[in-house]
């Protein structure tokens, strides 16, 4: 049994007036257009449901006290609350499935402290990583959260999805680089969670490690208002080298060799598979042309001190060459790596089979896999995608696969295997959404779980098509049952981002 939406309280004029008292008139948005643009986030969306998930009101709190008062009000009146950061997530975390109040955290972008001696900064969670790094750069420091949405995502959303970064192999990911954080619970209680009970200690053995509980909660437990984040010295050298391979086996083995060689400075290693290279070749205006015999491309990046990176790069070259890799030169290295945040957001990347440009939106699945699962998953993902391309001609397209290192602070073990899918989103109908798009996603998620892998490495598995497989199969060994207990305990009225992670099931008989 799930909580019916009718049990939620309405956003009445009285509620609006109270919200205005809390955050000020100008920070309560009731205009339909201002609300409607907060209905979706970054992934292909069910445009046909736009009105159904447009929040009733948007509030922009200025700090923790505002959030406390908003949540107390919402809890008292059982009004759904959906926190929203940059709206750049790919798992629908910021989609207000039950309408209600959208708490847009963008005004909470203050830098409270930069503690250079202890190499950390205390910030509001409405801050964007690029903006933070603009302030840190003159100090020779960096917050190393390097994601596709680097220029627009916000820390709160990154915490909400337990974010992953391109250079996590060297610096760690969001669960590692966020030291502690301030959480406002649905009843207005404010708690700081970290390694132990203090704000700047990374490793502690005191008590439960609650930081991990409030990481990647997708807004279902609390709103994170402040965080202490890790600072690193800015790397003296950042090297990106691309190598061409003419077959999968050598490319795959080269990935293994480079990630297990024991480099301390390796930041990432990647494979662009054959379908990805084919797709990029279609994309004539933004890709540096590669010779025809290039079928797979491997990338290795090293960040750190010059005295560490230079010899590591030299040895890395030897490893790649030993597997038949051919260095593609500095232009490819610098150009492609420099455009890593930008290049996949151009909707005219879409191509019909005969090469004509067509309007498609980019989507990527983000399976977490171990090394030996990669070949089978790669084949299976392409197979699933091709099946739905045949079933719905012109609606979907296989844009190839990336494989990235994913284990924090080391290259080996875990990988992100990402199939990119072009979606003709404007042409989707309710039928092709349900029976095409969602079923395809579900099959991809199922393929991952069948291989004992995880549905999501970075976006979160609360998206339609993913959530059912993730919660009921991947988390079947008691984890989902425990999640439901925790959810019910912390959020007894189910106001926090209801409808996500199948957590409505927590409120059954």
């Amino acid at each position, binding site marked *: 049994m799930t909580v019916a939406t009718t049990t939620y309280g309405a956003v009445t004029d009285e509620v609006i007036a109270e919200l205005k008292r809390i955050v000020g008139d100008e920070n309560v948005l009731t205009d339909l257009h201002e609300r409607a*643009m907060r209905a979706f986030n970054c992934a292909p969306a069910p445009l046909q449901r736009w009105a159904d998930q447009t929040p009733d009101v948007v509030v922009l709190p200025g700090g923790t006290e505002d959030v406390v008062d908003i949540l107390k009000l919402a809890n008292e009146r059982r009004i759904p609350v959906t926190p929203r950061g940059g709206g750049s997530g790919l798992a629908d975390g910021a989609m207000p499935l039950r309408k209600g109040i959208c708490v847009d955290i963008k005004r909470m972008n203050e830098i409270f402290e930069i503690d250079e001696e202890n190499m950390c900064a205390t910030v509001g969670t409405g801050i964007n990583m690029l903006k933070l790094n603009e302030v840190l750069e003159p100090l020779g420091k960096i917050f190393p959260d390097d994601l596709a949405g680097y*220029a627009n995502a916000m820390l709160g959303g990154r915490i909400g999805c337990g974010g992953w970064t391109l250079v996590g192999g060297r610096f760690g990911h969001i669960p590692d680089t966020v030291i502690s954080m301030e959480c406002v619970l649905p009843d207005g209680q404010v708690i700081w969670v970290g390694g132990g009970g203090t704000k700047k200690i990374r490793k502690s053995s005191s008590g439960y490690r609650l930081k991990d509980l409030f990481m990647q909660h997708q807004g279902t437990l609390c709103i994170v208002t402040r965080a202490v984040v890790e600072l690193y010295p800015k790397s003296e050298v950042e090297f990106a080298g691309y190598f061409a391979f003419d077959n999968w086996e050598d490319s795959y083995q080269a990935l293994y060799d480079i990630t297990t060689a024991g480099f301390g400075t390796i930041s990432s290693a990647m494979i662009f598979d054959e379908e990805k290279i084919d797709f990029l070749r279609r994309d004539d205006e933004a890709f540096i042309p590669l010779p025809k015999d290039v079928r797979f491309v491997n990338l290795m990046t090293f960040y750190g001190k010059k005295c560490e990176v230079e010899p590591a790069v030299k040895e890395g070259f030897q490893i790649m060459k030993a597997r038949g890799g051919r260095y593609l030169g500095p232009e490819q290295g610098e150009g492609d790596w420099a*455009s890593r945040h930008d290049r996949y957001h151009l909707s*005219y990347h879409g191509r019909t089979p005969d090469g004509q440009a067509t309007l498609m939106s980019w989507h990527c699945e983000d399976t977490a896999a171990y090394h030996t699962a990669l070949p089978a998953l790669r084949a299976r993902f392409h197979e699933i995608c091709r099946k739905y391309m045949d079933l719905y001609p012109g609606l979907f397209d296989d844009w190839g696969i990336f494989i990235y290192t994913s284990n924090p602070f080391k290259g080996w073990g875990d990988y992100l295997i990402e199939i990119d899918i072009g979606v003709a989103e404007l042409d989707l109908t309710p039928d092709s959404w349900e029976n095409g798009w969602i079923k395809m996603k579900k099959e991809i998620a199922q393929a991952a779980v069948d291989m004992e892998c995880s549905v999501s490495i970075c976006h979160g598995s609360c998206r339609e098509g993913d959530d059912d497989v993730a919660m009921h199969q991947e988390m079947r060994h008691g984890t989902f049952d425990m999640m439901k207990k925790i959810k019910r305990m912390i959020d007894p009225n189910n106001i926090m981002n209801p409808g996500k992670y199948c957590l409505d099931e927590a409120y059954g008989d």
Partner: protein
Amino acid sequence: MTYQLSKKDFYAEPLSKSKAIPEEFVKEAYLVFACRHKFCRDICPNFDITRNEAHTSYGFHTSILAISRGVGEFDKLMDNFTYCLECGACELRCPNTSMGGDFYRRSTTTLDLVRKVRRDHLADGGEITDWSAVKDYLDEHRGLVATQDELVTKWAEGIKLAGDMKTALFVDFFTATQGTEVPRLAAQILGKLGVKFGVYATPGVTAPELLSEDEEEWKKYATDNVKHFKELGIQTLVVVNPHDYALLIREYPKWFDMDGIDTVFVTDFILEKMREKGVAPSVAIEGRFAYHDPCTLNKLVVEADSPRDLVAQVTGAEIVDVPPGNQWRYCCGNGNGPFRKIHEDVAYRIGQKRLRAAADLGVDTILVACPHCKDQFTDVKTKSGLPVEPVHVLELVAKSMGVDWETTSPTIG
């Protein structure tokens, strides 16, 4: 030069509260919505203050798409659409422009969109809150048309003009009446450099605000201008206001044949003449200065070098500000259209943030290359008390060349 940008013929079709959004507009809106990474949002100087993404390129395009899906109404758009500064940062930062260029004729043209939506709304009988201030400003300029050639005699009082129209100074109404130091300084510097030039005295209403009210009227003045340029045999048009410069090289080529007319911004032209004649400013002016890139130069036409290079000609003068690419996020707060006239408070906060960034550099002067920036910063300085004085680049150069413009400045009634 011209700055190639998509001219989308489908923009000719009016949008209206009584009609469905045309298919091409749906695609246009979707292109920005579908990116969803919102680089346009976080580069927007207005968003930087209000933190409301409804006021960004993403917001504008998403609203259009939402209407096409039955969510929202065309005549309710205005409360957000007036928040566009028309600075162009979003267009530059959008992957549709930065990665696709104009390959698909689908560069993001936010300025064209917001201007079109405003004027279609007005043509539809709609109202825009506080538009009266914009209308008053345009009416004031319309009122100047009948006697526009007399303006020159006022702002150029005491300056000898050679009258050779092969090279003509283009002086718009704002500069001719409120920013008179700029054409005076330009004229005196050019005179000192021995350049023969005339003044184009009949620009009509060129204010970009007019593009948000009546495009046909704006085009009527522009048509007259192009006709006159050719009749007068103008070969080089030296533009003193970057707002007009952006219009001349971005908008005019969409509608008119500008072949044979070299449109140059005043700092570029002065620099070129200095180099050509081997003349450099001789009086040293020691100082560290902030420099504010006008949005209309740095973002709308991506020209940022010449004001900096001109300052570099002045012995002892040093610019210590961030480079042009890092100034995309800045605006003085005036914007390139009606913004400041409607949202005075937000305009002030944007300007205050920019002046504070200059103050943080430890300077007491911010150089500008735009009369609107100077006007706005002067206002912000007075209200905020921030200890940074706005000074036009030409004033610095003039002083270094021994031109004392203040002593010959006319009084404009």
